[in-house]
């Protein structure tokens, strides 16, 4: 009986290792992992962890690009490990490193404190006195056109890839970052929201929206198709009176 054709190959996986809390130098661990056409980088890391070195530090959860936990630098680009197939990458060696512009906790795990703080600061929820649902009254109706204005920005999963790709984040430790700025636009463009002035005031400081230089790298790396750079430019226009 003829065998089923297999796409199985061996891929070399280089994982950057570090543990800042314990000190010590950074290093790379290398593993040879069997991969198929459908094997994701996360699958390969977990195989290395299961059969090579169980001490590899990696954060993951849903494995379907929904939770935003497994962001990392894959061959030098910020990507979700669960959303990146090894067969889509160039070259035989896959190098994985922790995301840039984030403090390293251990190995591939980074701290999200700054991202969450920045996100929380812009009040990421609908602010409206009419938020309570009254019986017999249809709540907060919107036209498809009104929904279209912000819906793509509501797809953000807070994975941090945009902040990792942002050149301003690398030098300005107080910059709000593309993730939270795009979320400001998401709520400003929402007709149900009444917190526009509050939010615009928050980002209108010396490390707010005006420090974005429109490199556009945030939009290139977003795994959910959100375009933070466009949101930020629309928000700038809004603040300058082009509404």
């Amino acid at each position: 009986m003829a065998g089923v054709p297999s796409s199985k190959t061996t891929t070399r996986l280089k994982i950057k290792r570090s543990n800042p809390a314990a000190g010590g130098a950074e290093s790379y661990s290398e593993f040879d992992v069997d991969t198929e056409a459908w094997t994701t980088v996360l699958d390969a890391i977990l195989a290395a962890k299961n059969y090579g070195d169980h001490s590899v530090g990696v954060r993951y959860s849903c494995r379907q690009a929904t939770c935003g936990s497994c962001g990392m630098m894959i061959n030098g680009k910020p990507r979700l490990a669960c959303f990146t197939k090894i067969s889509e990458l160039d070259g035989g060696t896959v190098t994985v490193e922790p995301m840039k512009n984030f403090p390293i906790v251990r190995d591939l795990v980074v701290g999200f404190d700054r991202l969450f703080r920045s996100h929380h600061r812009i009040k990421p929820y609908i602010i409206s006195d009419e938020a309570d649902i009254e019986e017999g009254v249809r709540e907060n109706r919107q036209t498809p056109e009104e929904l279209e204005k912000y819906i793509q920005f509501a797809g953000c999963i807070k994975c941090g890839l945009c902040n990792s790709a942002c050149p301003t984040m690398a030098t300005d430790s107080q910059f709000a970052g593309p993730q939270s700025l795009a979320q400001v636009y998401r709520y400003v463009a929402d007709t149900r929201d009444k917190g526009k002035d509050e939010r615009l005031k928050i980002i209108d400081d010396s490390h707010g929206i005006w420090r974005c230089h429109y490199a556009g790298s945030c939009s290139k790396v977003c795994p959910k198709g959100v375009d933070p750079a466009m949101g930020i430019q629309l928000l700038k226009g809004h603040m300058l009176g082009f509404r």
Partner: protein
Amino acid sequence: MRESTIIRIHYATALASVAFVALHVMIRVTQGFADSLEFENVVANYQFLPYAGILEVILVLLSIHGFNGLRVVLLEIRQGRMYERGVTVACIVMMVAVIAYGSRTIFAMNMGAF
């Protein structure tokens, strides 16, 4: 002052600078570009009030735009309350000094210092 107000000034001075520098270049081209820096021509330019006015406006616009640009670059390199305040004050002082020194030259020449 809010950052959006500063940025409005930044953009406005950039656009106005382009217009005034274009005017300045056009005047120079029509007046014999090669002789622009001859001493007598320079003095004559300063003593022609409308042209001296254009030079003064360019000086003010570019000083405001340039030193605010420098402030923004320096704020992105390092952070900290004292540092930021220092950078802002230093940029304002330098801007005022450059405008004062340039204006002094323009006014002195215009009033016949040479």
